């Protein structure tokens, strides 16, 4: 195949990858305060897409206000989920919390099923115009929307965690929750906040990717699997790690499907992932120093 096709494969890999990355950074936010993986992250994505569909297509609210309403609603759901299920647990273990998030994931899927049924919903592109052409390859406007949203979100997160006190306090919660309480940090409130933030970003991911990937009540968890892979591969807690890994995963899948075998593309990309984990047990961006500090 020629250069043009290669470019196209990379571009569509980036689009797929940015979807994974977007979901991956949602995992990181909650990991950064609680050290757990939130299995319901995919459901935030799903709810983002489906709620926007209802607001925009069924209630005919214009796109921008509909998106804002959706994000508020998903954020509230995230807060509600944390307050009702994780908040009441005394002395939770990591495994307990993870299973609670699995329970929440199933529950939210059940809710979505009873509201939206089993249909596959689609949204129009936010900017309906034909795909751009770059060097003979095409790229849709919606892919650009996803990229822009991803870049803004990750820049915001980077700034938030490195430069704001609240962000640092959130990181402190996961490193040492007891010491964090001794600083007067309201650990439980920050955990709630992290769920709000993760739900918001999950919702944003859902809103922007639904025009590309379509959405139904169980699609969130399928996408979340790849998002999880991106988060882990990048090094848990590293926003840029997730983006890098998500992109790598997307581009690998795309190139394997394009040049080797579409049937085995998931197997090949997973094998690569296993290999990378074998070489770098803390993910691409996971610094050895930090891992050993966490273990001490």
């Amino acid at each position, binding site marked *: 195949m020629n250069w043009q096709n290669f470019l196209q494969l990379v571009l569509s890999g980036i689009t797929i990858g940015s979807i994974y990355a977007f979901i991956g950074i949602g995992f990181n936010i909650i990991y950064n305060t609680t050290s757990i993986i939130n299995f319901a992250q995919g459901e935030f994505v799903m709810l983002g897409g489906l709620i926007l569909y209802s607001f925009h297509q069924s209630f005919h609210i214009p796109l921008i206000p509909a998106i804002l309403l959706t994000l508020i609603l998903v954020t509230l759901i995230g807060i509600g989920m944390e307050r009702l299920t994780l908040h009441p647990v005394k002395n939770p273990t990591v495994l307990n919390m993870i299973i609670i998030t699995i329970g929440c994931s199933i*529950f939210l899927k059940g809710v979505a*099923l009873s509201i939206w049924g089993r249909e596959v919903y689609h949204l129009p592109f936010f900017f309906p115009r034909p795909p751009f052409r770059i060097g003979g390859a095409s790229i849709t406007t919606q892919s650009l929307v996803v990229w822009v949203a991803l870049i803004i979100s990750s820049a915001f997160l980077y700034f938030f965690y490195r430069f704001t006190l609240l962000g640092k306090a959130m990181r402190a919660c996961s490193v040492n929750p007891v010491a964090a309480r001794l600083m007067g940090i309201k650990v439980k409130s920050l955990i709630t906040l992290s769920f709000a933030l993760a739900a918001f970003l999950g919702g944003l991911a859902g809103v922007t990717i639904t025009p590309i990937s379509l959405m139904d009540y169980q699609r969130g968890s399928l996408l979340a699997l790849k998002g999880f892979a991106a988060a882990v591969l990048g090094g848990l807690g590293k926003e840029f790690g997730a983006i890098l890994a998500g992109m790598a995963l997307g581009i690998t899948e795309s190139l394997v499907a394009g040049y080797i*075998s579409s049937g085995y593309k998931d197997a090949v990309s997973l094998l690569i992932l296993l290999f990378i984990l074998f070489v770098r047990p803390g993910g691409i961006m996971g610094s050895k120093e930090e891992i050993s500090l966490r273990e001490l």
Partner: protein
Amino acid sequence: MRKELKGLVIFFGLIFLFPLLVKSPYYIGVLVFWGIYSIITLGLTILMGYAGQISLGQAGFFAVGAYTSGILTTRFGLPPWLGILAGLGLSLLLSLFLALPSLKLKGHYLAMATLGFGEIVHVVLNAWVGVTGGPSGFGEIPALSFLGWKLDSEMSFFYFTWGWVFLFFLFSLSLLKSPYGRALRSLHAEERIPLSLGVNVYFYKVFAFLWAAFYASFAGSLYAHFMTFLSPSSFTLILSILLVLMIVVGGLGNLWGALLGAGILTFLPEILRTFEDFEMLIYGTFLILVMIFLPKGLVSLRRGKVATGD
């Protein structure tokens, strides 16, 4: 050991009497699945509850056991027990490959690696159409026979399965009550401690993976011969997660918990099936409530009565 034996006799006595009291093939059939899942969870609980490792890829070994013995008996006409042995062999080999990276990986990273393994198995089942039948699966797997007794009824398969559950339970119990079990339980602490006491941590981690894979693979072979039809959709990540749920809901690090968890989560969908759309709501709520109110699993409801080491 003696204390556990009493519980064992009572529990398995009741189980073995069950088909005589309740003749419904439906319930017996569900109990067969309970038995099959129990074998997996009995193995997995050694890995997760004792050796402190995590596996989100157990469905992969279950699939390897099922497909190997299914394919060998159906396509190549091999006797079922050879198929089962071949499945066990292949699973042990694969779990060795999986266990090696596990020596380096921890927590969520290990979870991801095992999950990746399970997914790779799933992709291969789908894509290797010539051998596995691809997504459509394949059927007409011959029934097992045991000492000349053809296991083609629910009842006979029930006794066969639960006989194995009983044996596997005894094996697990013996393991945990032996020096090997002690060493396995020592892996729960930070790695450097058992290492400094001469425990070959690497060996035991690999051992626990092999043990769990062995159980899962055997259960897979039973599943293949009981269902007589296999397709990849039975061996997904959802099953791997379900198996972990069974162990945690039942009670991590407790053989009775493994049995109980498998039982509860096998029966729950049967009871909930009539609720259809609400099933997921109830199921999710159930999991959340158990974890909030019984974080140590359902076995913690009956303290004192508990088997090993907890």
